[in-house]
């Protein structure tokens, strides 16, 4: 069955995708982020808004979109990233939060980009975008598993919550009584290493 492309002012709808042509609501100019006169809190607010605008692009499934929203809320409102990072990396942080936020926004944006490719015309950046998408997808799967471990445990204490969300002891490379924490800890250690290499804050 052949699909016809339907074009509107805002998008091109193909058989598989709705390709949005206007990206101004998602992008944040780098000059604005680098501008020191703009308050840091304002930058955080602006990036948070843009991360949230990416929500419909992340997935069509509500469960995945909700995981993404919960992940963003936790990252922006609760997480003490400096503490989490200190469990793995001993060196002091070199990159400023503005740059990290902008890079993270670009990383997420890359994961929802569509470039028309054919057999003859291939773009190198498309492979990079695919890797970003796979990492984001795996991260959201891991976040969903963390939530299931925290709220699905029969134990009525909040030890798991404290470990996974506040004290970050699970990230340390040491023997854990709970094997689940060992598995999640390894994944999150690699995420921190990736953050260090890309100057992001995933």
């Amino acid at each position, binding site marked *: 069955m052949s699909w016809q492309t339907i074009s509107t002012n805002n998008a091109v709808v193909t058989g598989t995708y709705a*390709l949005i042509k206007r990206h101004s609501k998602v992008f944040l100019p780098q000059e604005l982020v680098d501008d020191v006169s703009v308050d840091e809190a304002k930058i955080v607010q602006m990036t948070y808004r843009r991360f949230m605008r990416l929500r419909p692009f992340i997935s069509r499934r509500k469960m995945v979109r909700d995981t993404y929203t919960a992940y963003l809320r936790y990252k922006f409102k609760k997480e003490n990233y400096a503490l989490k990072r200190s469990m793995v990396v001993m060196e002091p942080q070199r990159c400023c939060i503005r740059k990290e936020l902008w890079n993270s926004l670009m990383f997420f944006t890359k994961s929802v980009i569509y470039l028309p490719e054919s057999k003859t015309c291939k773009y190198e950046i498309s492979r990079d975008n695919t890797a970003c998408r796979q990492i984001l997808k795996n991260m959201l799967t891991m976040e969903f598993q963390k939530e299931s471990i925290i709220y699905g445990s029969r134990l009525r204490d909040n030890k798991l919550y404290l470990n996974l969300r506040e004290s970050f002891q699970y990230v340390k490379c040491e023997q854990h009584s709970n094997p689940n924490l060992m598995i999640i800890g390894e994944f999150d250690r690699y995420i921190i290493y990736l953050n260090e290499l890309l100057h992001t804050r995933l």
Partner: protein
Amino acid sequence: MAMKLSITEGGKNLLVAGKGRRVPRTKLRQVPILQVPVSPLLSNFEKWAGKKRKLYFENEEALLSSGIQNYHLDRNVFAQLLASPMRCDRITRLKLPKDMMMQLKLIKLEPSSNTTKYSIELVPQGSHLKSNRSSYVPNKKAFLQKNMEAAMKWIPLPALLSDMRHFSVADVKIDRVNFLSNYEQELRKILDSKMPRLHGNTPKLQNWDILVSCSNSSLNFELSQAKLETCNDSPLSIVKFNLSSVTDKSWTTNYLKKNQNHSLGIVLRFPRDKETIYALRSLICFHST
């Protein structure tokens, strides 16, 4: 009684000759055209289409000009590990990228060596293979030793659930005594076979290069900065693989000595040395807690 119709001169002209009062052309253009509003179903079709949404760019240039850059993640070992497809771990039932786990496969035993009742064997793979069905377990020696009694549960589920199954669980051999040592031997075999290729090279350090060494640090992987001798560019980020967790110290010393290709130690590059890097990472993680 005949009625006399009185028609004005202008009306007569309009009816008979069609010569009514002509509207000048300029005025005609000003007459508003009745516009039918376009249905939102068409104007905002992307909202109702129910398709997966993507941000559209015409080509690579348009993308790069908007500020998006190429991270070159194909050169980053951690990005590649994290981007590998998720698979379910057979012990904890958690999903993890498959390249971070130990792959197990069922191998047919050769009839000549088949003196026992077993026809197939469950073996760990040093480097991951795509062929046949596989299962995955965490790549941790201490943890697997603890769970070795329940190793029968590690048989690949697709093989067990297949309608074409030609074996029973009792036919599967699991060498519990040598299971983990065999895996370690296989990793070392990969490392010994792959490393000699680097001889003769004196690689200049590049960003995200991997430096293999054995330090006293408790961390298996470390990130450090290196400044190039020749140029004043920003410092390079180097990933350090620490072999200190490997228990066989003589093998480690010998390996580092034999394969040193840089003044700092062994320098590897992704994706050129992918198999070596993955084997080294697996060996380090296997021995760590």
